């Protein structure tokens, strides 16, 4: 129902924005000399989750899955709801940010606690 009625599958302007985001970050990193092909985050990751690439890949997939599902339910993401809704002072944007930190803080503390053991 969702893909046929609510939001028919098509490559709209949102997909073009994402292409722009990719190119913008590419240009910025090339200009500042920070572009580098890599499979792992630069800092903080190994201390928390170990050096295995497969762990990163699994959690990158899971994390992306969760942010996308969360954004779908909430009606937007950090930029699409928190910022876009926040600048027009929509109450939902602030509730979204509260939820983001209410769940993000314990998650991050759990990760840090694991890292210390």
């Amino acid at each position: 129902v969702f893909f046929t009625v609510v939001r028919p599958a098509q490559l709209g302007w949102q997909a073009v924005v994402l292409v722009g985001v990719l190119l913008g970050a590419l240009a910025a990193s090339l200009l500042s000399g920070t572009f580098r092909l890599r499979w792992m985050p630069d800092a903080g990751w190994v201390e928390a989750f170990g050096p295995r690439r497969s762990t990163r890949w699994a959690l990158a997939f899971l994390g992306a899955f969760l942010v996308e599902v969360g954004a779908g339910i909430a009606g937007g993401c950090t930029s699409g709801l928190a910022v876009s809704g926040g600048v027009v002072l929509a109450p939902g944007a602030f509730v979204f940010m509260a939820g983001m930190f209410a769940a993000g803080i314990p998650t991050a503390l759990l990760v840090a606690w694991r890292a210390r053991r």
Partner: protein
Amino acid sequence: MMMTIVAPLLIGFAFGFVLQKGGLTRYHQVAGVFRFADLTVLKFLLSALVVGAVALRVFQALGVAGPIPVTDSYLLGNLVGGMIHGVGMALAGFCPGTVVAGAGEGRLDNLTFGLAGLFAGALAFGLAWSGFFPALSRVGALGRVTVGELVHVSPVLVVVVFAEVVALVLYLVERGRVRPDVARAGLSRRH
């Protein structure tokens, strides 16, 4: 052509450029905000909010911008979605925009598993949509209102108070809380 290709491409380009320059594409900076070990994301978010909120009102007062479309609020969905989003963001160190920007600066984990996760998440949400979303979005449904309309206060006053509060928070953050050594070291300071 202009509105469907060029404008979104330019807006996306500018967004990706500043995300990369701001360091928002890095795991330890995004995950670190949830432990208040690195406040880059918080400062970026608050600055964007206050500049955007003031600019929109100023442009509107000058007659440059038309009526502002207000984002739909349905509080339970906003909250639950925000929580799921927060868990994913704290785990992977990116959100739907920065995973793409990270791919642009050469992060192959974002480009492969990150983007695959995004598509899988969108697919799962779409398939499950009719089962829960219509009911969920009716709880706390306020519609397209602003905070000012909700509490019957002038929007200009809300924007001014909001800007002052955020400016104060940013000032306090800048004066007392930011420790660049911690920001750089990320989680490693725990050892």
